[in-house]
């Protein structure tokens, strides 16, 4: 091919993918990439949150995190108490032009609750659904259940016709050795349309001019770029290469705040950071497991200097927690939030009394791409435990490597952050973490504990439709979790976003979810 041909070819096929006309382009530098364009392919909240710009649920949270109608306009519980009838919104179209009907809802619910779907736990009470008419759907549950709407905020609706055409009716099965169509194609009803995607490099969203709702944002284009390294993210913000990040490193906030072109948005996340214990008979070393004894768990709890971690590692930006849920979460009470007090001498005494051998070795499993400053607070805690005569072996690796170890009981002590999403209710951690492992319950009960009394309380709450009564049950359950020290709550982690001067509005939400359909950019920037 001669140069001339090449140039002609360039002129003919070239598609300019970074064009900066008089458009409002939000350049989003995230700390990681989304796993896929298929919101059902990973049970991963960041992926789901980003894809919420493309796909929508029947209901959604508004700016105050209250539930409001989205693809469904209204709903009622039928007389049998377990069937919910949803009236769907008229005139909604998917990005490919197909109109939104009851068929789509049924097909999407079938897909997300399928046996192989990693997200089936997000819809725990679901049994079946059926089309009543074009714009009416009935969803049947396995019993009375108060939190269906909360669940549905995060169940994204696909186009049934599109899924059938592209053989995507089932969740992606990596084992089949083929790609899933929905992994790299998307067709939702949301405010933004996926224009292109290069995994780990760039995903581009453009505004959906035909969105059913009145847009509050004025963005034309969102370019999502994963910038894994915190330092690079800061450099990119300072130099204006990105205009928004939902993960500004806490240690760099003073520097960012001092920069004339950057604004830092801070808040405290709803996510409570916890440490979990193993309840199996032996540790990974094969030694008997002392953590089944409550005094030993208490010893580890009292050995952690929460204030020091708050000041030094979290730079004063976190909130020390005594409860396993954050204050705004229904079910929380101040009594639950009482802190134990740092007392390493008491810890040593407790360990000695329980007969725990000096220098006991155990694994401490942390993520390198997980919570805010996780690697640092894990190191700090490991060093505090070393000082009461234990030998924690710190094991830090990415989530993809650690998850199998955690779920298959191949590690001892581990970290876990829980934001109660998407329920925003204390029922979420009670059911998914603290309940015994049983079907959809206790999916994150990695330590393998079982307290029948606690299970009974949680089950009772799960079928109680009366709000006050339900919350009373949940508070009682949370108190039991606290008394037994099933997990050690550390803190609610800080949340820091940063935007450059071109971005005029970027509402910060305590669930740490960017909702760019509320973002605005200064005109003419």
């Amino acid at each position, binding site marked *: 091919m001669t140069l001339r041909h090449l140039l002609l070819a360039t002129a003919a096929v070239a598609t300019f993918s970074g064009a900066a006309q008089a458009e409002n382009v939000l350049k989003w530098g995230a700390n990681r990439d989304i796993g896929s364009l298929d919101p059902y392919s990973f049970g991963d909240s960041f992926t789901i949150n980003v894809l919420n710009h493309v796909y929508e649920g029947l209901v959604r949270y508004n700016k105050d995190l209250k539930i409001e109608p989205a693809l469904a306009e209204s709903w009622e519980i039928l007389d049998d108490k377990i069937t919910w009838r949803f009236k769907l919104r008229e005139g909604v179209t998917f990005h490919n032009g197909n109109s939104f009907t009851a068929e789509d809802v049924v097909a999407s619910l079938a897909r997300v609750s399928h046996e192989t779907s990693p997200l089936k736990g997000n819809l725990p009470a679901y049994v079946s659904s059926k089309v009543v008419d074009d714009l009416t759907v009935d969803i049947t549950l396995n019993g009375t259940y108060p939190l269906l709407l909360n669940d549905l905020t995060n169940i994204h609706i696909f186009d049934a016709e599109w899924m059938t055409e592209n053989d995507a009716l089932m969740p992606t099965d990596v084992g089949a050795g083929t790609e899933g169509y929905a992994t790299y194609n998307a067709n939702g009803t949301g405010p933004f349309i996926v224009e292109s995607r290069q995994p780990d490099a760039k995903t581009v969203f453009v505004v959906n001019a035909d969105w059913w709702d009145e847009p509050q944002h004025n963005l034309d284009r969102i370019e999502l770029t994963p910038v894994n390294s915190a330092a690079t993210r800061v450099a990119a913000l300072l130099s204006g290469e990105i205009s928004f990040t939902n993960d500004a490193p806490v240690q760099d906030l003073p520097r960012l705040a001092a920069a004339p072109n950057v604004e830092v948005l801070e808040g405290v996340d709803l996510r409570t950071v916890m440490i979990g214990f193993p309840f199996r008979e032996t540790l990974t070393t094969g030694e008997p497991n002392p953590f089944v004894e409550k005094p030993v768990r208490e010893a580890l709890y009292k050995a952690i200097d929460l204030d020091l971690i708050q000041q030094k*590692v979290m730079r004063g930006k976190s909130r020390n927690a005594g409860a396993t849920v954050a204050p705004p979460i229904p079910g929380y009470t101040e009594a639950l939030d009482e802190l134990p007090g740092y007392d390493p001498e008491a810890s040593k005494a407790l360990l000695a009394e329980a007969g725990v051998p000096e220098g006991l070795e155990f694994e401490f499993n942390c993520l390198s791409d997980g919570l805010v400053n996780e690697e640092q607070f894990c190191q700090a805690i490991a060093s505090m435990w070393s000082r009461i005569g234990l030998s924690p072996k710190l094991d830090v690796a990415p989530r993809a490597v650690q998850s199998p170890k955690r779920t298959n009981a191949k590690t001892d002590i581990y970290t876990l952050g829980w934001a109660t999403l998407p329920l925003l209710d204390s029922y979420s951690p009670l059911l998914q973490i603290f309940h015994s492992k049983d079907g959809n319950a206790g999916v994150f009960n990695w330590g393998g504990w079982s307290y029948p009394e606690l299970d009974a309380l949680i089950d009772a709450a799960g079928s109680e439709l009366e709000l006050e009564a339900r919350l009373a049950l949940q508070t009682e359950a949370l108190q039991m979790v606290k008394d037994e020290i099933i997990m050690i709550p550390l803190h609610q982690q800080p949340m820091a976003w940063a935007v450059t001067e071109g971005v005029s509005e970027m509402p910060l939400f305590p669930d740490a979810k960017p909702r760019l359909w509320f973002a605005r950019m200064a005109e003419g920037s």
Partner: protein
Amino acid sequence: MDNTIPQTTPAAPKRPSRLTLLRDSDLWHSFRAHPSAIFAAALLALVALTAFLAPWITPQNPYDLAALELWNSEIPPIWEAGGQWPFVLGTDTQGRDILSAVLYGSRISLIIGFASVLLALAVGLALGLVAGYFGGWIDNVIMRVGDVLLSMPFILIAILITAIASASLPTGLKDVLAAPILIVAIAVPSWVQYARTVRASAMVEAKKEYVQAAKLIRVKPWRIMLHHILPNCLTPILVAATLNFGLAILSEATLSFLGVGMPPDQPSLGTLIRIGNQYLFSGLWWIVVFPSIQLCLIVLSVNMIGDWLRDALNPKLR
């Protein structure tokens, strides 16, 4: 080259006379005439000395988790406002003394670099001698394996070995074996070079009359190899080994920087730089700068010695 054999065969000389030989040798004179070589040697000696004396001269054992005190975190170097004794070069975000970490880290880097060169030398010399001396299928197999190794980029082999080892080992063993794994990972792709050099000279020597004669009187093959063939190719190998020592230290640092080398609780210089890199813009420059300087100084001094050695031993350039 042949006439140097009698000098280096261990038949005649005793230990002290070797020292005299060294003192009178061209090499020593050349060394004394090259200020850069002297400087580099002095620097390397200083680094090695402080690194190996680290447990006795540093204020803190940075590998002992119980010794770290979070209250002492992020203290700047002593000459900056807020600096504190004894943290001369400041502390990191865990309260680890940077000077101690740098010295302990240098020790790890030097040991891994040295051990991997030694291992590659041992394997390379042995296989090269065997291949060149015996020839035939043994030669073929060894050289083919070498071809395959040379057909993959050095750094790629090293990454694969460390990545696979750490993915398949349990956490407890992973920490203990981190350094040995790195030594092997760096040695595996580098023995071939020595083997090829030795093999070439072994092939030449094996055909010579004295070797044939030795064979006739049934001198054991390993004696012939060790006493006659090996000394002949030591010069180029010495130069290559010195330069590879620098390369090995760089490789270790690179692997640790990429996160497949030494773990954060027993950091080498590369690990320290990787950790410090996160704080590049937080004003905590000392966490990344001091390990970087130390690493560059070590490699620079090794390379300067290697360069001088190459020029000094290369008759063409004199």
